């Protein structure tokens, strides 16, 4: 009996002669080959019944696998899992850590920043005041801890005692603004 590979070698030009590797054939069936290789495999399949049969069997094998795996589709297990998941929702919320970022309403408002900037300008100038407040805003300061942050930052500019005095003024300003605007 004539070797089918030899027959192909004799009949078809280079590139079409060779049987594609099984991985290439699988990728061809799945449409995952680059166009040039795909065209080459396609031409080969037109002439090679052996590979054509192999390509058709790939689909069949995957369907077979899918049918076998269908045996583990257990709707009861899924429903049980869903009810347990919903129970866990509650428990995980209780265990959830406190968020790092404060709530948006407790963040510094632009009106508050503006008034504090005016206050700071008299001590350190407009550019430094702007920088200090930008830094405080980046550190997610709230009206409650802003004075502490300002005291720390300004200590390097004007000394600790002066910085503490400015912080007290800022604190009073914040208190007035917060009570006026109703910020918690």
């Amino acid at each position, binding site marked *: 009996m004539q070797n089918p590979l030899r027959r192909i070698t004799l009949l078809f030009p280079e590139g079409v002669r060779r049987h594609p590797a*099984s991985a290439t054939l699988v990728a061809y069936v799945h449409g995952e080959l680059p166009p040039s290789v795909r065209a080459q495999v396609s031409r080969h399949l037109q002439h090679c019944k052996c590979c054509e049969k192999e390509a058709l069997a790939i689909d069949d094998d995957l369907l077979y696998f899918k049918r076998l795996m269908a045996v583990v589709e257990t709707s009861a297990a899924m429903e049980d899992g869903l009810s347990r998941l919903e129970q866990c929702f509650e428990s995980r919320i209780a265990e959830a850590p406190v968020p790092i970022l404060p709530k948006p309403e407790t963040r510094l408002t632009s009106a508050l920043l503006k008034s504090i900037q005016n206050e700071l300008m008299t001590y350190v100038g407009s550019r430094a005041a702007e920088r200090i407040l930008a830094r405080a805003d980046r550190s997610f300061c709230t009206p409650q801890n802003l004075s502490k942050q300002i005291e720390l930052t300004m200590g390097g500019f004007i000394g600790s005692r002066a910085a503490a005095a400015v912080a007290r003024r800022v604190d009073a300003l914040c208190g007035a603004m917060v009570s006026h605007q109703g910020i918690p």
Partner: protein
Amino acid sequence: MWKSSIETTVAFDGGAEQGSSLEQIQAEVTESYKSLAQCLLRYLLCLTRDFDRAQEAVQEVFLRYYEYRLKGGEVPDGRGWFYRVARNYVVDQTRTYRSDRHVSLNEVLLKADDHDCPHEALARTETLDLLFQVLSARELECLELRVEGFKYKEIAEILGIEPGTVGAILAQGLKKMRALRVKIVEESGRCKIP
């Protein structure tokens, strides 16, 4: 072809906006669970070969998703994220988990009692049990992900391998599976799978 019939529709919009209410996030997680849990369970069964571990991992994945969404995280690539998290979780667990028992897939059948024909289900489970013995975890993973409709690139991302390797693993897995089919047919003629 088979591809269109097995593509899973995922009711998943890639994440809600930040600041979604708790109820919205819970509904989103529940919806994702309904559409993805079974696929994930099958995939994790391929990976762990243990039904209970797979089920536990599915649970954990969705809890992680819930926590992630609570912190304002968004999932850009849909179901691929779930498969990656599931895989990472199982791999981490495997490092510390020492299985002291071989879980036969017949146990799965006991849980899968909603099949119409028990004999048919038993035959399939036995074949699946054999398949799990013959194929490596990676081959099973690749086959399952492909059957779920993932592209080679996506499979490669989930498994952390090159896309070119996926085809080779699939070919190897299919070759082993075909040999098993032939063997089963030759031995007992148990080839009639509807």
